[in-house]
């Protein structure tokens, strides 16, 4: 019951400021732009049959996967800001007065962000399938929206986005400074990790390690993205099973949150 109250409270926190829909709008526009653009390039190139081509049956999934492969940074930001804003605005004081059992508060936040991440996943997929699928259909390529495979992929994408938001919560507790958390999210997701993944894929042993990077795990869970196909290892190299990818993401979220609980959440609030 206390946990249910905590979740309700966290949902109100999240929905009573502008942050969530500002992030959601940017995400949908960005994802739609990338999916639509890539669909146009590959579909256009494919019909003229020179340059890099993809089999038509791989293309739809690749196009739709922009929902997670570029969209995942938004649930991470949402989750991290949900925690760091509590530190920044000193609202941990009323929060812990209303519920002194701090573990319940943090669990409520994590559950709430899982839900919010899933909602972001749905919105991002509407963006990628709407724009990407529309372009594909325009070129006369099968959108595969009638196949069960694509809907299993949609489900796994939503799960991935939910887990990314939970990772954001963990990151926020680890790095309570709002500015530092935003810088880390952007630097890691936009620069460091893509570089690491590309570099690591050059040798076999480093590729073994790199598959546990959160971005790789996420791609494994979703099943293919522009990265796995563009890497030198191709789509056939090392890689986790989809459920292993999900477990890696969940483990990262849990470990970060537990460490953050000890290092910042339990501390004196003054």
């Amino acid at each position, binding site marked *: 019951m206390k946990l249910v109250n905590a979740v309700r409270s966290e949902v*109100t926190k999240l929905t009573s400021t502008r942050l969530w829909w500002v992030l959601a709008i940017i995400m949908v526009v960005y994802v739609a732009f990338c999916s639509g653009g890539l669909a146009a390039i590959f579909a256009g190139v494919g019909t003229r049959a020179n340059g890099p081509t993809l089999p038509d049956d791989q293309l739809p999934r690749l196009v739709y996967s922009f929902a997670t492969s570029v969209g995942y940074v938004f649930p991470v930001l949402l989750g991290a800001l949900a925690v760091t804003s509590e530190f920044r605005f000193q609202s941990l004081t009323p929060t812990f007065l209303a519920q002194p059992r701090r573990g319940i508060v943090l669990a409520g936040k994590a559950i709430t962000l899982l839900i919010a991440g899933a909602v972001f996943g749905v919105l991002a997929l509407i963006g990628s399938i709407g724009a990407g699928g529309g372009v594909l259909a325009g070129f006369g390529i099968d959108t595969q929206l009638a196949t069960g495979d694509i809907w299993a992929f949609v489900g796994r994408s939503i799960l991935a986005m939910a887990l990314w938001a939970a990772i954001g919560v963990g990151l926020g507790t680890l790095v309570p400074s709002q500015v530092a958390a935003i810088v880390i999210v952007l630097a890691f997701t936009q620069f460091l990790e893509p570089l690491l993944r590309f570099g690591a894929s050059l040798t076999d042993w480093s590729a073994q390690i790199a598959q546990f990077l959160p971005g790789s795990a996420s791609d494994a869970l979703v099943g293919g993205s522009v990265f796995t196909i563009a890497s030198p290892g191709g789509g056939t190299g090392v890689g986790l099973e989809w459920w292993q990818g999900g477990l890696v993401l969940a483990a990262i979220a849990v470990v970060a949150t537990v460490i953050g609980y000890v290092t910042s959440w339990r501390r*004196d*609030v003054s």
Partner: protein
Amino acid sequence: MPSGVPIEFTELTKSFGHVQAVSDLSLTVEPGQVTGFLGPNGAGKTTTLRMLLGLVQPTSGSATFGGTPYSKLDSPLATVGASLEAASFHPGRSARNHLAVYAQAAGLPKTAPDAALEKVGLSGYANRRVGGYSLGMRQRLGLAFALLGDPGVLVLDEPINGLDPEGIKWIRLLLRSMAAEGRTVLISSHLLSEVQQTVDDVVIISHGKLVHRGELSSLDVSDSKQVQVNADDKDRLAEVIRAAGFEVSNLRSGVLVENAEAAVIGRLAFEAGIPLTALSQKRTGLEESFLTLVGEEGSL
């Protein structure tokens, strides 16, 4: 009617590194009255209240509500209402949503936020984002948070800071009526004069240590009673009073007579045929004995 429980501090101690913020504080705050928790800046008031509310972990000792620490209370907001000095809210949230967030977390009824806003006179601003609130409105919103669960105990850190005279009068009446209903009311301040008309009992700390505890009147130990008096012919007035054996000093307007009663000085002037333009008894006891207690260099 929720009834108050006593607040008990037992050998409460907190050090931040080398700074001993609170040292071995033991005392009980009783229900049914307003207790002022006084001390100069940096005395340790806020730290003490944060330990009481489970926000800061004591180095040693404990603080409880009738034997139960805050973190073990069944329904904390319905037992204890607290507001601390820091402005603790997200500026982008409306006052109603701000209160709804905590009412939901504490499992309070849906009507609690509006009822609390009504009590502090913010109903008309319920949907406005809190970032645009004035200092006094924020202070009231803090109080609304404290009143959210209609608690039997109120713990308020510097609640009068930032209120206009009308607001001060209003909060005075509110706190007095809550105490009269049998609730426990503990308010902190660094100014005795600010709470003098509100509190029944005072607790004074300085440098983290308890230096005085008792009824407000127990502070009025000064036996030096002064009279301020003035006349058009100020010099002759001073001469006459001095001749009667009083110690007289010059003020900007009139003279100050030590150890005197207004009636006596008035009669002296009358007998000497000097028309007075001002005559008043001064009792500087309270503020002075407060300053004596917290020490000359009491402020930090």
